[in-house]
Structures are given as C-alpha cells and as structure tokens.
C-alpha cells in the first residue's frame, strides 16, 4: 500500500467537497482496503463516509429508501426487508460472512470490484481492467468463475455482488450526488458491460457519490421471491451462478415473473425474454426451461465455464418451480 491520508466526515456535502483527485470514498473497507494493500488500486487519500447517516425508511410511494452507508447485516435483518422484499434479505445473507456483512455498506457493495484472480495478481497476470491495453489472461486461462453473457475479448470478469442481483430483480434505483447535482440511475443500468473499455465498470462520474438505493413498492412477484446461490462450498464463497426469482400466479397462470442472474456477467443480468415469455403461461418446468433458454441463446461460454449454461437452466427451473408450488 502506498502512503495514505485518512479523513472522515459525517456530512454528505462535506464528503463531496473533500474528494479531490487521487482520493477515494471509503465505506466498510472490506474490498477497498484489500485492493489498496495489494496495490491493485492506489489512492493518496481515503474519505471515510461510513458514518454518514444510515437510515432505512418507507418512501412516500410505499417503497423503501436505503441510505448508502447502511451496513449489509442491518439491511438483511430489517423487518420490512424480510417481510416485503425477502429476495433481498436472502441475497444479502448469501454473501460473504457475518463479519464482512457487519462491516460492508450498501454503497460499497454496489461498487465492489470483480474477484477475477488475474485482476488481483498485480505481479503475475495481464489485466485490461487494471492496465488498459495490457491484455487479458483470463480469456485463455482458468475461467471457471467467469462470464458467459455480455463479455468481450478484452474482459470476461463477473460482478461478484449477491445484493445487486436482488436489487436488479426488484427494479431498484440508485440515487447519486455529485458536482453536477443529483441524479438517479436504475440499478440494472448502473454497471456497464466491458466492451473495449473494461476499466469502466459503472456510470458513476468522477466525484460522484452513491447516496442511497430506492426500492419500488413490492410487485406481486416480489412478495413470492427467492434467492438461490450455487457455489463450490456451501457457505462463504462467491457464486458460480445465482438466481433471484419471483413469481405471481392467478387462475393457474403466471401473471408476473422476475428473474435476475448473478455470476454470469459484469453486471446483474435480468432475464427479460424469459420474464416476457412466461406471462400468461401455465407454470410448468417445461415452460420455465423454454423461457430461460431464450435468454441463454446469447451465452458464449469459455473453455472452463460451459457448465454454467446448464447450471443456470436448472437453478432457474428449480427456483420458479418452488415459487409456483408455494403460491398455489
């Protein structure tokens, strides 16, 4: 780690004024401290914003407003989240360990970097994300954990967050504040695909800060929702793939389906074609499988991760089948 100045503020305007060039906002530190220590990232200053007000409150429209500095553990255990947005609680609880969830903030979770091992290997691997134009050792390397959708020949990294997969499924909106004023971006549009510039990971502009996340009032498919994570060990591991699913039925037919996938792309992947195909369908395993295959036709597996296509298919079918059974 290179020498670092540390500043702390509990005031949003002060935080925005303090962050100049070479400075980074610091939340729980669970990713950034590690990245700085390993010299994957460098900063001359960190501005600790973890003590900004961290509230969870109902919005005027019946949704939920979550401040960016709310800790992951607090959000997962909040009574309104558990009752109205169960997929979000379950996704948060699937992530990391209890210690890390006690530390990690909502804003930091959204902005965490990929866990691609070549990205972390500063001395031993080429990475276009770390050093644009250097090349990518993951494309032809050990890529069991890498992307099957939306990747490029420049980068095949995945976004590691569980929480963001649930937020994508919930149509969450990210509220931002910066030198140019306040603005809001749907979570599904917040992270960008790598294309030719994998070093650009989000639409966040220099000096901008995530203020909070807003959840719309729970849709019918959100009330019956589930998060299932498939990984190499049963806990405390990043996802191979994960599924945030929701289903609402009426008269024996699907009236709304929501599906977001984790571990498959550089951002949470909404399976929009499947969602559309399932409206009006009789909820059977065959219907679920046919629907998710409409999204997976675009999959471009690498040498080490072709299994993810079948794994996504089976997990989506299992989640939706369970939800169909529970809501009848």
């Amino acid at each position, binding site marked *: 780690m290179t020498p670092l100045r*540390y500043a702390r503020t509990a005031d949003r305007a002060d935080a925005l004024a303090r962050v100049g060039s070479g400075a980074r906002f610091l939340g729980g530190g669970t990713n950034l401290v590690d990245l700085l220590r390993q010299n994957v990232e460098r900063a001359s200053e960190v501005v600790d914003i973890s003590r900004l007000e961290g509230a969870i409150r109902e919005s005027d429209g019946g949704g939920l407003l979550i401040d960016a500095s709310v800790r992951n553990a607090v959000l997962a255990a909040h009574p309104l989240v558990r009752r109205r947005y169960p997929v979000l609680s379950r996704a948060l609880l699937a992530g990391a360990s209890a210690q890390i969830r006690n530390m990690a903030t909502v804003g930091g979770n959204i902005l965490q970097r990929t866990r691609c091992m070549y990205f972390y290997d500063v001395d031993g691997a080429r990475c276009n994300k770390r050093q644009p134009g250097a090349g990518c050792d993951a494309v032809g390397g050990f890529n069991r954990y890498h992307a099957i959708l939306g990747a490029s020949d420049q980068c095949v990294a995945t976004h590691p967050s569980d929480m963001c997969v649930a937020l994508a499924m919930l149509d969450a909106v990210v509220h931002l504040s910066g030198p140019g004023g306040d603005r809001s971006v749907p979570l599904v549009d917040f992270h960008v695909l790598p294309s030719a510039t994998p070093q650009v990971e989000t639409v966040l502009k220099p000096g901008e800060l995530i203020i909070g996340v807003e959840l719309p009032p729970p849709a019918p498919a959100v009330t019956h929702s589930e998060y299932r994570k498939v990984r190499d060990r049963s806990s405390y591991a990043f996802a191979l793939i994960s599924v945030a699913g929701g289903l609402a039925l009426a008269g024996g037919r699907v009236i709304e389906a929501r599906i977001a996938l984790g571990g498959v792309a550089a951002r949470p992947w909404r399976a929009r074609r499947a969602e559309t195909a399932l409206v009006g369908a009789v909820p059977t395993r065959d219907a679920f499988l046919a629907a998710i295959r409409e999204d997976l036709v675009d999959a471009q597996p690498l040498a080490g991760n072709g299994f993810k296509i079948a794994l996504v298919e089976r997990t989506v079918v299992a989640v939706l089948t369970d939800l169909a059974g529970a809501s009848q």
Partner: protein
Amino acid sequence: MSIRVNDREVSPPDDARVSLLDLLREHLHLTGTKKGCDQGACGACTVLLDGSRVLSCLTLAAQAEGSDVRTIEGVTGKDGGLHVLQRAFIEHDGLQCGYCTPGQICSAIGMAEELRRGDPSYVTFDLAAGPEIVTRAEIRERMSGNLCRCGAHNGIVEAIEDMLAETAA
C-alpha cells in the same frame, strides 16, 4: 479521538495504512488476535467492534476511532475467569493448534448477540420470523466466516451449543 481497546484508551496510529489488526498486535502487543490471511478470507483476526464481530485485518485502525474494541484478551466470564465459551472449547476439544481459536471465540460471542436479536441467516427457513430453533446447520452457516484448518469444527459447534444453552438457561 482515541480507540478504546479492552477498556483502555489508545491513540490511533500516525500512519493511516495501519490496520486495526496490526495496531493490536504490533503496537499494543495484544497478540491474541491472529493474522491468518490478512485479506478477509479466514476470520482469524475477528474482534468485537462496538459489540459487532468484524475483521480487524480489513479495518483501518483509524476507522475504529471513537469505538470500543474487544479482543480475546478482553473476553472474560462473569467472575473474571474464563468465559463460558472458553470453558466449553476446552471441554469439547474445539481446537487443535489453536491459531483460529481467538477469532472463533470472538465471532461466536458476536453471533450469540445476533441470535438474541432474532437476526435471520441464509439457512433460516422463515425469514420474517427468524430462527426458532438454533440448529447445527444455523451455527455452521453463521460461523462460516471462521475457518479451522485442523478441522475442529465438530467440537467448535458443540462448544457453541453449550454456550447458547447455558446463556439461555
């Protein structure tokens, strides 16, 4: 602002890069807290920060200013002797080499408080209701952030079951 470590006020380090773990071990010589991976993957450095279990390796010491830190050196029973969980670890052979033990004990004390609040885990069946019965699966899931290379997990889970039963009684 100072940091309160086991009821003692200490100054934060001059170098902002110093982790809470290195402050404890290298500056304060509280070597009970262990450095395993130093990257948040093993849980050996777990301490209690304002009562919550956290990883001291991924916490900058400066982030703990104004907070209360409790390490294994500050864990005691009601009579000033061993904590009920420390006694249970001895009774159930919850360790072999002992390197992960301070982190396991601090983590389990933090976990007991989370259970008392009714916080759910990934394996809790009814999220809204929270865990009704603390099964072994619940304990294993909640303690998954603490690895034990000796494989003493069965004894660790039994020791935690003892602590939970004793504190519930």
